Structure formats: structure tokens, C-alpha cells
């Protein structure tokens, strides 16, 4: 079976013992700096919100995390399509890594959402459109991962997971749409309206912006590492085919 070689240069060589490289070291460094800047602006320099108080600071992580999760899902579906269409293992691993990182960010979104909700609404959970959709997203991702992590041959796992992955984005769209309709056709009191409707500007807007940058960098760093780990794992599994064939024939010669 041929393996796509358009992966980052330092991955083609089956030799490396770690998944780090110059690229990821630089990326990681920049990400750390971005996180520091985010902490500075988000926690210290930007003001508290008139309505939400200090809780607004959580949104600087919550909103970008949600976006990161959706981007991860998009990668999963794209990778799944390309795997089914072109049999590209590289893209299949992108799909897998994308799903795992998306799951992480979905959990972060849910947790930060709940942490934001407590001081703002007084409760940890409400069945509003956004939170509910995010919870559904998590379940859909867990389903994909359950299939991808089966104990079976790579081909079996990959193909089945790819079908599930291919449908991930359509499912997410349909679920979001139905949850949205559901929650807006029944008008709930404005107590539960999402605080993001209020105007956000100035330093708060800048903090949100740095949030996006920082999360994007962390997302990318995690994605590359996760991809490489998966890549190496599959490489290891494949090694020794020639030796296995020779062994098999020797078994026959002695029979």
C-alpha cells in the first residue's frame, strides 16, 4: 500500500523518535507568548462588563474554543471525504487528529460555558441553543472516536470511521438548525439570552481577538502533534511485512 508523502517534511522519514520538530517548537513558543498576552489583556488590562461583571473574561476563551471545535469538525469531514475518495491515509489521519482536538475544545467550550453561566444566570446549565448544540457536538464526536478507536485492522477502522466522519458536518448543521428553531420558537424570558448580544468593543474586543489568536495557535500545535503520533503508530504497525513473508515461506519449507 502506498503512503502519501505530502506530509510535513520531517514526518516522511520514519526515523524520528519524537513528534517535535523545529516547526512545532517555534509554534509552541509563539503559542505560549500568545497565551501570556491573552492572560494579560483578558485578566488584567480589559475592563469588566457592565452587565456580566468579571464573568465576561471567560468568553475570551469560550468563544474561540467553540470556533476551534467547529474547525476541527470541518477537518474531520474533509479528511474523511478525501480518504474515501482518494484513499489518502494522510487525510484520514488529519480527520482523526482533527476530531480528537475538536473534542478537547468542545469540552473546554462546555466547561467555560458553564463557568460563565453560573455567575450570569445563577445556574450551571440552561437548555439554550448554543449550549445544547455544543453538548450534541460532543456526543457526535464521541461517536466518531468510538468507531475510529475500535480494535480492528486499520482499513476496517478507517473506512467505517470515515463514513461517520463524512456525515459529521451535515449532522452538526442539522442538529444546530433544529435546536435553534426549537429554542427560538418558544420564546423564553430574556434572562436566558446570550450575553454576547451586548456590544463588545475597545479593549474587550482586543482581548477577544487575542483569545482567537492564542486558541488558534494552541489548536494548530496540538493538531500537528496528534497527527504525528497517529502517523508513527501506523508506521510501526506496518513494519516488518517483508520479514513476515519470509518467515511464512520458511514455515512452509520446513513443513
Amino acid at each position, binding site marked *: 500500500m502506498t503512503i502519501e508523502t505530502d506530509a510535513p517534511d520531517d514526518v516522511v522519514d520514519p526515523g524520528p523518535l519524537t513528534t517535535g520538530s523545529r516547526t512545532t517548537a517555534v509554534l509552541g513558543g509563539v503559542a505560549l507568548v500568545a497565551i501570556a498576552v491573552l492572560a494579560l489583556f483578558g485578566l488584567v488590562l480589559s475592563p469588566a462588563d457592565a452587565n456580566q461583571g468579571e464573568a465576561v473574561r471567560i468568553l475570551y476563551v469560550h468563544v474561540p474554543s467553540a470556533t476551534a471545535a467547529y474547525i476541527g469538525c470541518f477537518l474531520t469531514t474533509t479528511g474523511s471525504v478525501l480518504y474515501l475518495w482518494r484513499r489518502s491515509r494522510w487525510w484520514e489521519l488529519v480527520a482523526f487528529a482533527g476530531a480528537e482536538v475538536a473534542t478537547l475544545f468542545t469540552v473546554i467550550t462546555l466547561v467555560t460555558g458553564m463557568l460563565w453561566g453560573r455567575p450570569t444566570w445563577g445556574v450551571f446549565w440552561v437548555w439554550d441553543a448554543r449550549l445544547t448544540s455544543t453538548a450534541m457536538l460532543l456526543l457526535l464526536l464521541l461517536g466518531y472516536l468510538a468507531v475510529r478507536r*475500535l480494535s480492528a485492522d486499520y482499513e476496517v477502522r478507517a473506512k*467505517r470511521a470515515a*463514513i461517520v466522519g463524512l456525515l459529521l458536518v451535515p449532522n452538526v448543521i*442539522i442538529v444546530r438548525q*433544529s435546536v435553534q428553531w426549537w429554542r427560538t420558537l418558544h420564546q423564553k424570558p430574556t434572562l436566558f439570552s446570550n450575553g454576547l448580544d451586548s456590544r463588545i468593543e475597545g479593549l474587550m474586543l482586543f482581548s477577544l481577538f487575542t483569545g482567537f489568536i492564542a486558541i488558534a495557535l494552541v489548536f494548530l500545535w496540538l493538531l500537528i502533534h496528534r497527527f504525528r503520533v497517529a502517523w508513527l503508530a501506523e508506521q510501526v504497525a506496518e513494519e516488518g511485512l517483508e520479514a513476515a513473508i519470509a518467515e511464512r515461506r520458511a514455515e512452509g519449507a520446513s513443513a
Partner: protein
Amino acid sequence: MWADAWLVAVKDLRIEFRSRVALNQVLPFALLVLVLFAFALDPDRGLLEKATPGLYWVAVLFSALLALGRSFSVESADGVRDALRLSGLPPVALWLGKVLSVAIQLLVLEVVLGAGIIVLYGTSVTGWPLLLMTIVVATVAIATAGTLYGVVAAGLRVRETLLPLLVLPVLAPVLIGSTRAFEAALGGTPSEGWPWVGLMSVFAAVYVVAGALGFGPLMEET
């Protein structure tokens, strides 16, 4: 191809007819769920009445999981999967046949459950066109999506736990939509229900296509 699909559907229904699993186990299970809801929700306080549409569709979904699991466990007999691949039946026909068989069983289930809620929960039925259309569209949606994910989980040791995890989140929009449509019909405001039927039709269309395309590749395994 349609003849092949019908052949497969008839075969599945004949298996059901001889083994009577749906009749003896799935149907009673569905009615049992309705009864359990009554225990949990105390009929005297009006909760049961208000929740009827949702409870109906939850019962349908849980029972559908059993029916879908059964549809694939019959194919797990020794050598049957290989025989299907060798038979020359086009995978699309095989998929369609299975969808038809599951859909027919679900329709019977839904009718019986409908009688169940009328009798057990005292529901008074209005808005027939919306009710019937909802049942038809939801059945297609459940059968197509369920069969596709059923194949994904088929033949695996973990099938029984994997299938619900895959199917229930995917079918959540169907639950939301059909419940809202039923509420609209029973509440006398059918115009609010039809958009939901539209949404579920889109869902069903997506899965008809996905199933037809995905079933073949999924059957192929070394």
C-alpha cells in the same frame, strides 16, 4: 435493482415472521416504556398528558434501536456476509431492502404505540394529516440513518453499545422535529408543525443519499 431490494426486504420480513422477535419482544418493550413513563410521571398531575408527544417518540426511538440491532444480527450467521458479497446483489439494493424492512416494522410499531397513547394516556387525536405525514417522514429518517450506522457497527463485538451511541445523537433532530409536530397537531395548531416535517425531510434526503453511497464500501472488508 428494485426487484433485488424487494427480495431482500421480503427475506428480512420473512425472517421476522418466522422468528417473531419484533412481535414478541420489541413491541412489548415499546408498550412497557409507555407504562414506565406513566409510573415515573404520575398521570394525575397532568405531566403525562403534556409530555405525551415526546414520550411517544422516545419510545419509538428506543424500540427502533432494538429493531435495527435485530436487522443486522440476522446477517451475522456464519458465512452469510460473505455469501451476500458473492451473491451479486448490488449493495444499494441490499441497503434499500434493509431500509424497507426496518421501515415497515417501525410503521407497525408506531401504529401500535399510537393506539397505546390513545388508550393509556387518554390522548384525543386531532390534526390527522400532520400526524400521518410526521410518522412517514420520521420513519424514513430513522430507517435510513439507522441502517447506515447499523452497517458501520455491524459484525463488531461492540455492536450493541456502539449503535445507540452513533444513532441517538444523529436522530436528535428527528426527535425534536417529530415531537414538535405532534404537539402542534394535538394542540390544534398544525401550521407550526409543518416546518418541522420539512426539516425532517431534508434529514431523510441526506441519509437516503449517504446510505446508498456508503453501504457498498462498508460491506467490503478483507
